[in-house]
């Protein structure tokens, strides 16, 4: 029973940063701007939040710093990829390579390899909801998470509304689906592409805050461990739809939760559990794509 509780709790716990990245990245996906810099934006959010909290002891300032750094990256990405019409995949790669290098540079200057936020107690962030936490099974799953976790799930609903029921959402989708149509009606397509990328920046920064601040009160330079790319895979699997893509993000959370909780039984092979999420994603992608094109009789392969 306890094990099940842990698995359920861990699922939600580990899904949070991915869900945030997914929600951020899907606007860019719908706008037809492939933003693979999610990883770099998340890492930057995590690092600068931790750094500023270390220096100023203010959580609020830290979060502002984290989001700002991510927004700056988003602006650079948008400028190079949208305004200057550069190859967005390469620009995204560049960001993902530059950010860890910059962070390592700064850490080296500080003569440290991690940032330890000893003044914070990570467990203090966890919110224990009074009545719910005592419900068997569900209580263990729903209660006791840091605020961003609850925010991320609420955001699924909020951002769904944003995407399908507001002008902004419609314009983003139109720009992605038929940019000509948008331009012919005077919709500034570049503006909406920028907005889509910047939403991604904010959400990824928050994911980074969740990783470094809320969970461990610690920063190491490979914290993100490819979560940004998992988010991209999830967005592809869910074809940019908020609920579907989040479900795939949760799938990753399940896999990680299983990996962590079952590892004590597996002994030496425990490291192998960590490859489950990646393999699962590949299989899901294959199945989703195969199903999408199963009836297509066309022999032409599209390469971007």
């Amino acid at each position: 029973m306890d094990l099940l509780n842990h698995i359920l709790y861990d699922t939600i716990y580990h899904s949070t940063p991915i869900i945030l990245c997914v929600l951020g990245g899907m606007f860019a996906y719908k706008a037809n701007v492939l933003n693979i810099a999610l990883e770099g934006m998340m890492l930057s959010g995590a690092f600068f939040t931790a750094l500023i909290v270390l220096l100023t002891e203010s959580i609020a300032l830290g979060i502002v710093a984290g989001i700002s750094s991510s927004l700056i990256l988003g602006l650079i990405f948008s400028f190079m990829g949208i305004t200057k019409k550069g190859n967005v995949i390469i620009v995204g790669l560049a960001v993902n390579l530059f950010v860890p290098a910059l962070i390592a540079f700064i850490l080296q200057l500080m003569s440290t390899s991690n940032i330890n936020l000893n003044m914070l107690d990570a467990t203090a962030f966890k919110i224990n909801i009074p009545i719910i936490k005592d419900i068997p099974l569900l209580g263990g799953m729903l209660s006791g998470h840091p605020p961003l976790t609850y925010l991320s799930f609420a955001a699924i609903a909020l951002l769904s509304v944003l995407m399908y029921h507001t002008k902004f959402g419609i314009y983003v989708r139109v720009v992605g689906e038929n940019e000509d149509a948008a331009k012919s009606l005077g919709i500034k397509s570049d503006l909406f592409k920028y907005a889509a990328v910047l939403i991604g920046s904010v959400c990824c920064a928050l994911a980074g805050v969740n990783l470094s601040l809320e969970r461990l009160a610690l920063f190491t330079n490979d914290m993100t461990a490819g979560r940004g790319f998992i988010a991209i895979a999830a967005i592809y699997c869910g074809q940019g739809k908020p609920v579907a893509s989040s479900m795939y993000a949760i799938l990753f959370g399940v896999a990680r939760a299983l990996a962590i909780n079952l590892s004590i039984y597996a002994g030496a092979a425990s490291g192998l559990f960590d490859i489950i999420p990646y393999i699962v994603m590949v299989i899901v992608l294959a199945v989703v794509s195969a199903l999408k094109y199963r009836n297509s009789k066309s022999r032409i392969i599209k390469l971007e």
Partner: protein
Amino acid sequence: MNIIQTVGLTKCFGDFVANDSIDLSVEETEIKCIVGENGAGKSTLMNMLYGLLWPTSGQILIRNKEIKLKGPTDAIRHGIGMVHQHFKLVNSLTVYENVMLGVEVNKGRTPIIDQKEEIKKVAALIEQYGFQLNPTDKIEDISVGSRQRVEILKMLYRNVDILILDEPTAVLTPQEVDELMVNLKKLREQGKTIIVITHKLREVMELSDSVTVIKQGKVVGNLKTEDTSEGELAQLMVGRDVVLPAISERNTDISEKVLYEVKNLTTINESGKELIDRISFHVKEGEILGVAGVEGNGQSELVKVLTGLMESTAGTVFLKGKDLTNIWPKQLRKNGIGIIPEDRYGQGLCKDMSIADNCIAGQQDDKGFCRLGILNKKCICDRRDKYIKDYDIRIGNVQGNVSDLSGGNAQKIIVARELEANPQLLIACQPTRGVDIGSIEFIHKQLIMFRDQGKGVLLISSELSEILSLSDRIIVMFKGRLVGELSSKEVTKMQIGLLMAGISERGSSL
């Protein structure tokens, strides 16, 4: 009074002068047609009137007041609306969402869209103009004629006084064209001014009050329609007497031997719906078989299947008794099929590759060009030079890319390449679309010469005049099926028109 006027309007793209000092005036509540050859500069002019392009110099006047248009929203504000040739609609959205795009209505002060209110407004507009549309249909589910009406509705919703239509009849059946003309005349009654860009002279004569002829970026004629004729307009357009294509004189007889036989060919789209349904026909040696039909009725898919770019789910294809069903493009060429594809820059040529590289596309395996996997650059260049000479291809820089060539010259490369491979059957799909008149004549002559050698041609075209003048026999496609077969000597345009619209000879809908 002149509702819209241009004075010395000029547009240059670098060194290229697309519009040269154009003076145009349109009177209120008239229907004016702008005619000219492909590439004459008509679309550039209209794009400037709609704010999509900024003039290099010159003025645009609305009711004698000069205006500067920074973009489409400016144009719409001044009462100018445009319906483009390639619709600017979002397929996954509905009719009302497309009409309201950019001017959505929110629920009170919230950012949430009031869908009920939007549907109401659009429905009212549809009622007012008598268009047959359902506001909640998705664009991807409605017909081409309906989509065009959505485009017009988009502009009417924004209260435009001037409606510009760019080649509106390219995608319509003859009957839908008549319907459109009735609708446009009705709009004129309601006080709108209409400008139509077209190269179809029959429609110009039937529809317009006045005509402006543009040739190579300059205005060469401003006439009242009642004072002129198709012949005069044609002459103004090309600057010489154009022999409107007549039915080709046959020098040889059609043999009775069947060259190419297609039986029950079928294929489906991703949702399982048939794109082509049990198509059967044959082409004899020494014959040109024309496939008529409004674009979008399965011709593209038929050609894709016959050229190996799409798989069929049923049916067979035979060339001189050899089974070619569902083989790949390389095999098709080896077996003697030549292909002039529908989209020359999509399937026929690679814009960013050199002319020489394009000249051997499809034949790169041939021993003349390639030995042990290595390409013989000299042979390739020799071949290119031969094509340039024999097919009168005008090229600025011989080492340059295909993107430097005009549509007609690019098309000639494809024609040269395919014919020189000496195939048995040539599949020619929209062979003269977007091509200047001189090249059209040349390509038509080549097709006839090819046929006279006892070979076969499968000609697919949505230009009815081309089909009528070149084909020996005509079949008509509608909604993926073959709905009629006619001999070109006996057919009338009316008969074909009905078949293209899906009405069988007995008068019932197919």
